[in-house]
């Protein structure tokens, strides 16, 4: 018995007859019979409520944002999501639709994505946006490949202040075309060392990748970086929710902007799915080397405005081995989250949210410093995250916080085990605190009272 498969036994019989075979098994005669599966060893089918209960139990073993307060960021953020976002994204008309290949019956998806592209351009200050990549890390890795492809050069400079998992992803992606990745140091302000950057740019350099705000929450000086890297592509990894208060990277001359869309209305989802942002300068040549689906405006035979997937000659289903990327399925549903989120918050709301984030983080830092147990690590201006060194036992601190239903801060020591350059650069006692508009003043007091009781 199964509530997803409609076939009655009578129907199966009728259909077999129409096909001219005796049994369903006969249809599998092309298979190597001696390799047929006897049993896979899966469980018996379960009824809906049993599955519900089982998954409820698993979910209950996790600490979640409905029960805990988060002071943890580092790439995924606990923001307030307007209820209307949920109402829209849970419409089957959107989430059970396929890629809009049949444009005439997909105008809902296509127009939404066209609006999304416009919003991304507005946010980033860039001229062209695609309709999403998988996530921020893979989008950034694809940007590295694109930079090499476009410039026909093979060295990529990466700020050491980039999210370590982004760096790891870049490292994987460059191993196919065998590009060289070189790190650029940061200084005591926590921002990229212009000096080191200048020293490392050479003839072979395709581009430089910086994060804005960077992994430490510090806001990079894009103007200075642009000036120091005139002849290479500047690739900026953004936190999109900061762009209501931070100047758009496009206005500093960025060539490519990537980033993770999660802050724009998407739940934390244990890190996925969200979507990858990918935007570029408005440049006809550049766009031909861009990965991912792009939606364009056109007209129908009656002259009515409509939208289609366009510039497909870049893509794998046309260009195959010569495509700008292998990406096929993207993260379209994420663009719906972002489009509805940004429509709801608007320019004013986005600014207010940015100001809220930045005010909270500065207030928290001030209060933490006052306890005498925390010292600010970097002098640079920051957004909603900052690094502090602590003299407290981190293990004990985290345990106490957890007991008080608080998740975070992020222990930067945990990145020591990876191949990341952070290992060398950070001490074991560095903590990355994050605040968003979802943290109330009361939450901050609760955090502090735990700290003060230590």
């Amino acid at each position, binding site marked *: 018995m*199964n509530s997803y498969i409609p076939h009655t036994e009578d*129907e199966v019989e009728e259909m077999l007859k*129409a096909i001219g075979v005796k049994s*369903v098994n006969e*249809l599998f005669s092309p298979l190597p019979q001696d*390799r047929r599966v006897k049993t896979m*060893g*899966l*469980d018996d089918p*379960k009824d*809906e409520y049993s*599955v519900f209960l089982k*998954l409820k139990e698993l979910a209950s*073993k996790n*600490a*979640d944002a409905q029960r*805990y307060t988060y002071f*943890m960021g580092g790439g995924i953020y606990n923001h307030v999501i*307007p209820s209307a976002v949920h109402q829209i994204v849970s419409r089957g008309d959107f989430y*059970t639709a396929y890629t809009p290949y049949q444009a005439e019956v*997909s105008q809902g998806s296509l127009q939404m994505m066209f609006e999304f592209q416009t919003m991304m351009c507005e946010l980033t200050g860039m001229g062209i*946006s695609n309709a999403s990549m*998988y*996530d921020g*890390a893979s989008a950034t890795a694809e940007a590295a490949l694109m930079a090499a492809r476009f410039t026909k050069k093979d060295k990529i400079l990466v700020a050491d202040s980039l999210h370590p*998992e982004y760096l790891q992803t870049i490292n994987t*992606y460059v191993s196919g075309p065998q590009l060289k990745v070189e790190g650029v140091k940061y200084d005591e302000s926590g921002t990229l060392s212009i000096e080191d950057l200048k020293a490392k740019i050479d003839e072979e350099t395709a581009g430089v990748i910086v994060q804005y705000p960077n992994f430490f929450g510090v806001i990079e*000086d894009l103007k200075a970086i642009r000036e120091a890297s005139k002849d290479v592509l500047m690739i900026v990894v953004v936190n999109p929710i900061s762009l209501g*208060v931070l*100047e*758009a990277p496009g206005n500093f001359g960025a060539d490519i902007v990537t980033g*993770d869309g999660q802050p724009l209305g998407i*739940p*934390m*989802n244990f890190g*996925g*799915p969200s*979507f990858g942002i990918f935007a570029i300068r408005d440049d006809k040549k550049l766009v031909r080397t861009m990965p991912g689906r792009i939606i*364009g405006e056109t*007209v*129908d035979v009656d002259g009515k405005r409509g939208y289609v997937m366009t510039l497909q000659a870049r893509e*794998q*289903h046309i260009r195959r*081995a010569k*495509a700008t990327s*292998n990406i096929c*399925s993207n993260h*379209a549903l994420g663009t*719906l989250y972002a*489009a*509805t989120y940004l429509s709801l918050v*608007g*320019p004013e*709301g*986005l600014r*207010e949210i940015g*100001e*809220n984030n930045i005010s909270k983080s500065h207030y928290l830092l001030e209060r933490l410093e006052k306890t005498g147990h925390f010292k600010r690590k970097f002098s640079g*201006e920051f957004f909603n995250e900052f690094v502090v060194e602590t003299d407290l036992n981190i293990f004990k601190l985290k345990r106490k916080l957890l007991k008080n239903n608080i998740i975070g801060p992020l222990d930067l020591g945990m990145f020591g*085990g990876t191949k990341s350059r952070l290992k060398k650069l950070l001490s074991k006692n560095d903590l990355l605190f994050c605040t968003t508009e979802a943290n109330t003043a009361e939450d901050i007091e609760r955090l502090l009272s735990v700290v003060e009781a230590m």
Partner: protein
Amino acid sequence: MELIFEISKKGRRGFIPPKIDVKPYKINSKFARKNAPKLPEVTEGDVVRHYTNLSRLNYAVDTGFYPLGSCTMKYNPKLNERVASFPGFSEIHPYQDQKTIQGALELMYELEEALKKITGMDAMTLQPAAGAHGEYTGIAIIRQYHRSRRDFKRDEIIVPDSAHGTNPASSAMNGFKVIEIKSDDRGMVDVNELKKVVGPHTAGMMLTNPNTLGIFEENILEIAKTVHDAGGLMYYDGANLNAIMGQVRPGDIGFDVVHLNLHKTFSTPHGMGGPGSGPVGVKEFLKDFLPVPRIVKKKDKYALDYSSKKTIGRVRSFYGNFTVLVKAYAYILTMGEEGIKRASEMAVLNANYLRVAISKLLEVPHNSICMHEFVASTMPLQDKGIKALDVVKRMLDYGIHPPTVYFPLIVHEDIMVEPTETESKDTLDRFIEIVKEIVEEAKKDPENLKTAPHTTPVRRLDDTRAARYPVLRWKSE
């Protein structure tokens, strides 16, 4: 419909964010944004209406039959959506202390176990975000494998000409040369052709089986042996696993690496093009090359293990599209051993039922037993000037989504039909009826087909104009 920007009015609000309840901080003016982004200024009601009305312009699995070959547009169970939205899954942070995410890790671990059983593989990663991402990961693993053996000359991946575009693209992204081989006249891998190209340069071969024509590669064991004997590895593109799951396992017929499309085979929704999820399974000897972190179980505890030295690294941040994994896991629990088997059986039954009926109306070039899909051609209508595109556009007027067209590339004017197991005989009969009416119309009134669709929200759109004069964002006049 108007764009959301076109109904915007300065000063309107759609959401009131939390007030700043601590000392306010003004950002250093050096970094401060000068001009606000021109986002829409609308009310909550405007947003809800706008996107609700847009959504109604869409075709979706929740509205009708979707016989899209290669895409497996099966029904997306609502239980899966519900459980994935539990805060205990959707509102957790990837860097939380591992003791606060034991449920999430357990789920991922158990999902890997189930997928191993279904594919016959020995180890899994859930990190890849889609099918192509899985391919990328799998081919990277093959590359690392050869490199780890210091076998640096293997720079070729063999791909049949019927392969999905992502196969050559994923190979190329990994730095491989792509060797395309022609299919034989039955649409299958021509083993002789294969033998001509395998050799010391062969890193591996990518194969979809059943292939993109819906035909099971009968010579699969010989193919695998040929590649293996040459020192190459066999890659299984799992896009078509729905045809054979529970019947035969890729791991039992010679494949070393496999990716799955959870958004096809395991019923998670396509979301207008994504997110998907593309787990990759490998045989024991390739285990250490999988991306990090891996999910491990120690006694009764689950943990993230970053320790592998041979790993290809990461292909994205964090651990994969977790809430998609939750949905796939719920699906597997619901279906169970018996349900998974029945799914492939009914998928194949449906496809053959349609094949037999459609072969009487159009041409079906490879008209023998097919698996979960088959390819037909509208060539019989060519003398009326009718192309496959015209036929499928006309289907839109009947209120159904048409099959895939112009893929695979090896059949002329092809339409590729995959009904999936979640569609009933009634629906298939209705589809047959529609094809019949269209074929009749092609004879009587071909003009009406060429100008179709007639009843959709917009009519045939000008793709050429879109590409030639790209308008990729809205701009105020």
